[in-house]
Structures are given as structure tokens and as C-alpha cells.
């Protein structure tokens, strides 16, 4: 199956051992989108590396941006001002909604819900419009900087976001009325691709796939970052660990993301959006004409960046697909000595072999869809 099968969303080849229509064994052949990002990180300064990070999981770039800089921040010990943290939370939750919307649309498409795709695309576009209005780019936002974010929110942006928050619940209801109680949707997903909590932990999966099996693990709750502990939200947990529960998890997560967004809009802190530590963050332009020191900082940051202490750290965030981690080894220079990414798609896809044994070929499509892997993230 593959490498250009439409259900693989990216380029994935799965070698299936079949007995008629029954799958006996499967071997996922990945690496078609391997671009050597981990090697490339070693050649770029910490600030330059940000633009690589969002090209890995191209459906949730803001979350990759935050994951990357949080590793650097952990290494250097830089503080992030509250406003920057809130802006990061807003961008990450928008990314979560848009990624899950895309998942809904494409997985529906794989299973024959053609109309759903257009609804999902319409709604996802609203989130991309917000990305564009903030960063100028619809997908590859690269909006984080070490110690904060690159820009403050533009005028009128919060109103646009409020419209999005207001309109989305009804759109999700629409979507659910089409699928949640649909008998065909049930037949395709219920009881398919079941994985128990024990097996899910053993297989190393995270995110909605792990939670659908009944394990209450979400990085945002377990190890809060960017001030997630201040927001009131729930982590949906399933029971059956089948494809249908994974679908339910994602829809429920979108509703929780909207709750977080509303709270972030209501309580958005004022103040600076990037650290005042001139060793890692550029000075404001207004200072450049007045202060020689600012010019020196600007020159050093632009020409060679900043250095981190010797050591290794692991920082992680909750991506729509699970735990996205960055293991950063520093030798004291201005570039990562080694940057290992723990991509959730890679870890979740590893469980495919176990999940598809004994199912029908048609169910492989449903199972692959329910794992929600992104090959760019998986192959790096």
C-alpha cells in the first residue's frame, strides 16, 4: 500500500502480508520525507533553527516553534514574559483546532464522508486567516523567538479571534450531527483498531491515541508550560481505545481548545512580549539610534547569535498528535551540538503493526487515519 496512496497523507508505504482480505502482518516503510532537519539544526544558530522547526509538523507549526524555543529557553534559563506566554497559548490552541479540523476532513474523506471535507476546510481556513493576520504567513508562522514572540498582536486581531471563537461551537455541532451518531461512521470506526491502555503505554504512543485508551496523560496538565496551569480546561479521556474514541477525543479537544482561547482573550496580560534580556533578544528599533550598547547587542545577535551553556536538556509540548519533545545537546557554542526531535507521529506510527494484525484491508485505512500521523513530522 502506497507510497502514493491517498490515505497516507504524505508519503508512506506499508507492506502488508495478506491472507485474502485479512491482514496478517504489516511493515511501515517510512523515510520518504526525510530531509535531515536534525543535521540542519547543527549548522544554524538557535534563532535560525526556528524556521526549520515549523517545517517538520506542517499542520501544527506554532506548536513546533514553541517546542523548539522552549528547549533553548530551558538550556539558557531565559524567562518568558506573561504576554508572550499567552500569545503562544493562543497560537498553539489555534493550531490544535486547525490540525484536528484537517484530520476530521481528510479522515472523513478516506472513509467516504466527502461533504465533511469541505466543511472542515472552510473552518480550518478561519484559523489560517488568523495565522496570516498575525505572522503574515498562513502555515509556517515561525512566530516564536527565544525569550518571547517576534511580534505583538496586531490591531483588531483579537476581534477576529473572538469571531472565530463565537462561530466555531455551532460549526462543530454541525459536524458532529453529521458523524457522531451516523450508523455508517459507527460501523467503520467502532471496535476497529482497539489498543488497551497497557499496550498503548508499551507501544510508546501519546496524544489522543493514548487518551482514547483511557490513560489520562496530557503534557499541558501533567507538566504545564507557557502558563497552561492558569487555564480551566478538561482533558478528554476515552475508554474503548478504538478508532471511534480517537475521533471523539479530537472533537472534544477542539471544544476545550476554544475554552482555552476564550480565557486567553479575556485575561490577556499586558506588558512586553519578549524578554528584556539583550543577550538573547534584539533591542527595539527605537533604541538603535540612541544607544551604542543596543547597536552592539543588535550586531552580535544578528551576526553570530547567542551562546548556550554546556549541557543537555529535554523539553516537550503537547502537539495535536501527542508529546513533541526536543532533546538539545549544547557544547557551549551558538548552535545546537545535537538536536534530537521526538516526533509524536513517529512514535504513534510504530504501533500500526500491532493495530492492523487480523483486520480487513479496508480497516487499515480507518486505523491509519485514526492515528493522525504527519509524515513530515515522522521523517523529519
Amino acid at each position, binding site marked *: 500500500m502506497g507510497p502514493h496512496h491517498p490515505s497516507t497523507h504524505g508519503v508512506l508505504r506499508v507492506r502488508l502480508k495478506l491472507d485474502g482480505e485479512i491482514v496478517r502482518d504489516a511493515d511501515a516503510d517510512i*523515510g520518504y520525507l526525510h530531509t535531515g532537519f536534525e543535521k540542519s539544526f547543527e*549548522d544554524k544558530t538557535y534563532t535560525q533553527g526556528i524556521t526549520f522547526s515549523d517545517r517538520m509538523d506542517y499542520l501544527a507549526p506554532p506548536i513546533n516553534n514553541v517546542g523548539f524555543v522552549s528547549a533553548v529557553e530551558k538550556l539558557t534559563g531565559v524567562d518568558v514574559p506573561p504576554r508572550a506566554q499567552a500569545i503562544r497559548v493562543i497560537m498553539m490552541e489555534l493550531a490544535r483546532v486547525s490540525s484536528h479540523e484537517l484530520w476530521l476532513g481528510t479522515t472523513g474523506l478516506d472513509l467516504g464522508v466527502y461533504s465533511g471535507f469541505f466543511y472542515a476546510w472552510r473552518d480550518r481556513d478561519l484559523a489560517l486567516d488568523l495565522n496570516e493576520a498575525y505572522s503574515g504567513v498562513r502555515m509556517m508562522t515561525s512566530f516564536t523567538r527565544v525569550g518571547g514572540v517576534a511580534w505583538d498582536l496586531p490591531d483588531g486581531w483579537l476581534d477576529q479571534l473572538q469571531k472565530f471563537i463565537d462561530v466555531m461551537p455551532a460549526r462543530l455541532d454541525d459536524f458532529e450531527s453529521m458523524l457522531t451518531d451516523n450508523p455508517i461512521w459507527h460501523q467503520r470506526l467502532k471496535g476497529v483498531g482497539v489498543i488497551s491502555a497497557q499496550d498503548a503505554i508499551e507501544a510508546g504512543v501519546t496524544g489522543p491515541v493514548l487518551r482514547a485508551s483511557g490513560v489520562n496523560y496530557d503534557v499541558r496538565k501533567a507538566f504545564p508550560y507557557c502558563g497552561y496551569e492558569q487555564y480551566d480546561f478538561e482533558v478528554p479521556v476515552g475508554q474503548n481505545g478504538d478508532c471511534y474514541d480517537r475521533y471523539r477525543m479530537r472533537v472534544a479537544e477542539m471544544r476545550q481548545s476554544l475554552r482555552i482561547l476564550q480565557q486567553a482573550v479575556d485575561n490577556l496580560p499586558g506588558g512586553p512580549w519578549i524578554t528584556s534580556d539583550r543577550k538573547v533578544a534584539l533591542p527595539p528599533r527605537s533604541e538603535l539610534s540612541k544607544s551604542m550598547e543596543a547597536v552592539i547587542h543588535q550586531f552580535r545577535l544578528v551576526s553570530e547569535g547567542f551562546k548556550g551553556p554546556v549541557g543537555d536538556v529535554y523539553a516537550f509540548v503537547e502537539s495535536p498528535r501527542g508529546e513533541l519533545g526536543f532533546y538539545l545537546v549544547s557544547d557551549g557554542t551558538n548552535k545546537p551540538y545535537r538536536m534530537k526531535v521526538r516526533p509524536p507521529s513517529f512514535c504513534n506510527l510504530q504501533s500500526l503493526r500491532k493495530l492492523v494484525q487480523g483486520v480487513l484491508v479496508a480497516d487499515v485505512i480507518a486505523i491509519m487515519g485514526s492515528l493522525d500521523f504527519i509524515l513530515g513530522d515522522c521523517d523529519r
Partner: protein
Amino acid sequence: MSVNPTDTLVQRLGDRFKTAVQESSDFRGDLSVVIEPGALVDVARYLKAEEGFDYLLYATAVDWPARDPRFTVVWEVRSLAAKTRIRIKTTAAMPDPHVPSLTSVWTAANWHERETWDLFGIKFDGHPDLRRILMPPTWEGFPLRKDYVSFGEPVIFSDQKLEGLEPDAIRG
């Protein structure tokens, strides 16, 4: 803060495995231990069974060409219940770098160790399926080694000959 169960973990490991625990460090709250390769599987079994580190996060390696042994191999595991992490490190030396595989303890290590073999050329003894995973099976070299050039391709100058290929043929 309540008592952190990893506070005394290094000490417990040291009591049990003596000199096999070669080094330990706590940098920015990340706990790492360097374990002698021979004792690695036993330490891993102990960590999983007795200390509750049930979840493997990733495995990878770091190349230090000037050091001997040259490679540091890293596994990081988490206890979901206690919300703690520990990074297990060991070393592998040239010319034939190899370390024990931890797939028998955490099955999730399977792909991660394959990836480390693929990109660093470190063998994992006892791995059930050690094949390349990201690079094509025919690929030569190990891309994440520091002596592997990231960009560039061989260039043939007019006074050189590539086997079976005349210089003029390349210039077109």
C-alpha cells in the same frame, strides 16, 4: 513541593549496581546517569520493574569525534504515575560501535534504535529487526555522524576521471 522520588534514585542505583553507574548529573532538573554497557539491560529492567519507569520517550545518540569512546547513546524514560524522567546514557567506541538493545525491556525502543543505527551506525545487540528506517536500504554512510558532510556532492574536474565516465561526458 512534595518529596521528589528521583532525589535518592541515583543513590539507590549506586547501591545496587555499584561501579556500573559511572556518572550522574542533574542539569536544569533533567536527571542523567551514565551506565556501563555490560550492566545496561539489568539497570533498565530494574528501572522499569522496581522504579516504575514504564514509558520510553526516545532513544538516540550523540557523536563526539574527539572523544574515546566516541558515541554517547541515550535512552530517556518516564514514569507516568510519578511524573518523573531519567536519561540513561552509555558509550560506544569505534571502530565497531555497539551497545545492548533495550527492546527487550521497552518494546517502543524498536524504531528509535533502528533510527539510531540508521543515522549513526551504532549496532544494538539483541535488536529483533535492525534495519535502516529513514534512509533507503542501499544508503552508504551514517548521516548524523559529525564527519558526514551535510551538503555537497562529488565534483569531477576535467583532469580527473570517474570510473567508467570520461570527463567530457560530464561537461556535456
